[in-house]
């Protein structure tokens, strides 16, 4: 690869309160890649995502976007939180919640309406703009949070176990929708999950972290054809082989 990577962790180490959470994290991500991060609970995968978002600063080393160090959150990096119920503003409608990202980005008021309608349609919430988050199902709320992130026109989308709290059917539907969205826009994605099958199903690459302190333990490419299919992809021998490999990795990391 001669081109500079879109995103890079360069020996990033993070210590909080004297405790090393992440140690010497190094990996590059090419533009348009879908990278999944897995690991046993407490291995720092969510913390790594916050580093990528610029919400935390590495104690030593660097996190770089387009070769520039991330010293603060950036408008073209959006983060989807797992707890959509807490991340949405309950006193604003769906439209108002999406509008928040545009207000932050300085989009003129006149231009917001059309773009919001477009985003609502994109995430399958057309006609739901006047609903409040409290009137929506969990799946709809997470779609709304994704729409708010897309309103930033991100070149990098960070997702922190976004479907962890949803039921299996809703989760599969949203997995396919997210794949379609990023395939169309060419967005680079870093996706944190504890669900190995989800990581393989979605990713071009799966990175596994080892716990105490968090460090990269495995980095495997996923050579499965796209578009993925909930049935055939998951029955593919390569899928099953990867599942075994990652399962053994997690088991070994906990031992």
């Amino acid at each position, binding site marked *: 690869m001669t081109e500079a990577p879109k995103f890079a962790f360069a020996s990033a180490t993070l210590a909080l309160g004297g405790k090393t959470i992440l140690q010497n994290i190094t990996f590059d991500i090419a533009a348009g890649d879908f990278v999944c991060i897995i690991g046993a609970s407490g291995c720092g995968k969510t913390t790594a995502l916050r580093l990528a978002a610029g919400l935390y600063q590495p104690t030593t080393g660097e996190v770089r976007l387009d070769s520039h160090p991330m010293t603060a*959150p950036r408008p073209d990096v959006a*983060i989807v939180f797992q707890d959509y119920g807490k*991340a949405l*503003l309950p*006193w604003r409608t769906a439209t108002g919640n999406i509008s928040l990202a545009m207000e932050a980005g300085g989009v003129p008021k006149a231009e917001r309406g059309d773009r919001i309608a477009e985003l609502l349609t994109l995430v399958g919430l057309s006609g739901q703009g006047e609903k409040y988050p409290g009137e929506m199902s969990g799946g709809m709320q997470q779609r709304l949070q994704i729409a708010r992130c897309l309103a930033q026109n991100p070149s990098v989308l960070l997702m922190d176990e976004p479907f962890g709290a949803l039921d299996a059917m809703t989760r599969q539907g949203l997995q396919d929708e997210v794949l379609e969205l990023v395939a169309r826009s060419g967005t680079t994605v870093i996706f944190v999950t504890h669900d190995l099958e989800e990581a393989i199903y979605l990713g071009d690459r799966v990175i596994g972290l080892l716990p105490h302190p968090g460090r990269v333990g495995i980095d495997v490419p996923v050579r499965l054809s796209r578009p993925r299919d909930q049935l055939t992809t998951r029955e593919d021998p390569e899928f099953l082989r990867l599942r075994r490999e990652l399962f053994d990795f997690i088991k070994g990391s906990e031992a």
Partner: protein
Amino acid sequence: MTATGRLNWLGMILPLALVLGLELWLRTAGIVTDILAPPSQVIVALIGGLLNGTILAATLKTLTGAFGGLLIGGSLGMLLGIVFAVVPVIDRAMEVTVEALRPIPSVALLPVALMVFGFGYGMEFAIVGKSCFFLMLILTRSAVRGVEPRLREVARALRLSRAATTWKIILPASLPRLFVAFRLAASLSLVISITIEIAVNPQGLGYAIMTAQQALRPDLMLAYFVWIGLVGLCLNAGLLLAQRTLFGRAALTEEAR
């Protein structure tokens, strides 16, 4: 009334039985006392006082004293509470001062207030204001600090300015708890102003209670108790209504959303 707006008949049984029992007991036992009067006489005294305007005039004076202090002290306390919560350095710098002044009982300041302001509204504004100021300061600070950390993270990720974060996220998110604080401060203001009137200030409901007691009119004294209870009830109901209608969804508590 219950939260659903229907009369709570089950809850009415005990108070009604007590009132009826008191009436029967005082009537049949032939007790002569300066501190109790049969509920029927209390009602007569209440209606009499309402008709000749003395109760309403006293109420107006008490409410003016209470709300004046509430507005001055409460709004200052809320403002500073927000500042303290948003700018931790100021909070740290003021911590000792606040914690040293806060425990001084408002009523203990009465002699000072009396010398500075004399009788009248001035001392009520000052003493009620002091109580409401610290109550609102502490509750506002904790309401603002209690805002869901994830929302702050969303604000940071979206790179909202400090002013925009305060105005668009922090304030709406803490509005339900600010309203609870305001309702507490409102009932406290009523308590303090009546206390001041009982202790020194010759005006309003507190002074009227003292006058009735010294005139050996237990019926009128108790009528004032009943009336103060009703005023407090209406105050709370009015504030609840305002919370629901004025601020829309942002003011509702999490459960009601």
